[in-house]
């Protein structure tokens, strides 16, 4: 397996690796607001690509285009070389079966139990009548995220982190080829975050799953990514492996990966501090 990873890595540098997802001149506007600006990139099969960038820079919008939950304003999206952004919903059902999508807030069906949530995609696509067999699959998927025994809980009774892990179990229920993770470690404690990182690596290593991980968490990004893409104002400003990003000369990249606030932001804070603190204090406290 290591040999294969090395070979793939070599292929990547030579630009010969097989692209499973590709965008060409992808532009997305919401009204007048430009969220994605002419993005052309390809996601290599069997690799983990991490998309980083400040909040609101279009990371989630980008991966929603991969699975055509959003349609581009301009440009095309391809899956395995086939254009998918112009397909109808019925045709997209077959494309989407190859994907697992972990939503930012989990998006669990709150009228269903944990087990029913995980069963949902299995029952929709595999006509498995044997309930024992389905129970076994649910148990195995929950065990992978450390939540076996929670089958009969409703999502409302779970904590935010538990909900996210159940959502991950649901995303991998169909053993998809590609998993899109929207902030998988946000809201988890550091140990659970690392378990999710290990799970992403395990899925890649053992099943050859292609992963695209949207994250703010640089520790997670460095750990799981074969390639890191940084978005800023709807454009790709950095693209390469972890070392490439660490040593990237762009000041915004350095500022983001080190979590440093910019001088402009500090200036705004200094301006607002006096107004926010002094103006509304009761006179007795002055």
């Amino acid at each position, binding site marked *: 397996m290591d040999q294969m990873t090395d070979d793939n890595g070599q292929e990547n540098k030579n630009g010969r690796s097989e692209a499973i997802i590709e965008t060409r001149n992808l532009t997305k506007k919401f009204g007048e607001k430009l969220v994605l600006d002419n993005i052309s990139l390809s996601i290599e099969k069997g690799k983990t690509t991490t998309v980083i960038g400040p909040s609101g820079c279009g990371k989630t919008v980008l991966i929603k285009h991969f699975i055509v939950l959003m349609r581009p304003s301009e440009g095309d999206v391809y899956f395995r070389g086939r254009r998918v952004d112009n397909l109808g919903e019925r045709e997209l059902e077959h494309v989407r*079966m190859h994907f697992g999508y972990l*939503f930012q807030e989990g998006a669990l069906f709150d009228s269903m139990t944990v087990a029913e949530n995980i069963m949902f995609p299995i029952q929709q696509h595999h006509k498995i009548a044997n309930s024992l067999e389905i129970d076994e699959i649910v148990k195995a998927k929950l065990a992978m995220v450390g939540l076996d025994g929670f089958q009969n809980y409703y999502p409302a009774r779970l904590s935010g982190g538990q909900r996210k892990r159940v959502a991950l179990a649901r995303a991998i229920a169909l053993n998809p080829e590609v998993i899109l993770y929207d902030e998988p470690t946000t809201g988890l404690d550091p140990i659970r975050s690392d378990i999710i990182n290990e799970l992403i690596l395990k899925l890649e290593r053992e099943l050859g799953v292609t992963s695209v991980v949207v994250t703010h968490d640089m520790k997670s990004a460095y750990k799981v990514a074969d390639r890191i893409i940084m978005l800023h104002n709807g454009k790709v400003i950095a693209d390469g492996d972890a070392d490439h990003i660490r040593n990237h000369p762009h000041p915004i990249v350095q500022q983001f990966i080190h979590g440093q606030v910019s001088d402009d932001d500090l200036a705004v804070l200094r301006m607002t501090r006096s107004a926010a603190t002094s103006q509304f204090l009761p006179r007795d406290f002055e």
Partner: protein
Amino acid sequence: MFFIGVRSVPVVMITGAFVGMTLAVQAYDQLAGMGLEEHLGVLINISVVKELGPVLAAVMLAGRIGGALTAELGTMNVTEQIDAVRSMGTDPIRYLVAPRLLASLLLTPVLTIFADLMGVVGGALVSVLQLGINSRAYWNHSAAAVALWDVSIGIAKAFFFGGAIAVMSCYKGFTCKEGAHGVGQACTEAFVDSFISILALDFALAVIFKNIYEIFWPLKSLVN
């Protein structure tokens, strides 16, 4: 949906009963002035089965079922649950809308029958017990005037109203804006739009059924 249908029975029956009872009280004086109080049942029962039963039952259901559908689908929409259905390769229209539409199409006529029934009973109770109309005359005149056609029109209308409620409510749920305010607004719009479409459909269907009746009326007399 079964529960929504069953739980709607009491409110729909109460609506029907009050409509029948109110009609009896309101129309009695006019008819009694002309000595036609024994024909009160004709007026009440025709009004209930053709118009007021289906329309008011549908309005009640627009508030009850329509509001619940929009709130449920709207919340699913803003919490990305509908996107989750799509992301797993399932058509949300087929999975979420189709069963709700079907239930609404089938249940609204059934609930209308309950409203009609209670409207007829309520009207009769007030007419006979409170207003002192001869029971035999009341029912004879009613039976002679209200034909199967009239009842069928009412139930056919209810079928269309049920469709309108489900389509409007599901559409508003699917296009709901973010946040609690968005869901609230979608529910309000769903009810108002359902209400207006019920009234508009009622008018359109009244015209259509009248024309159909006029086409078949001469044939009926030939058969008889």
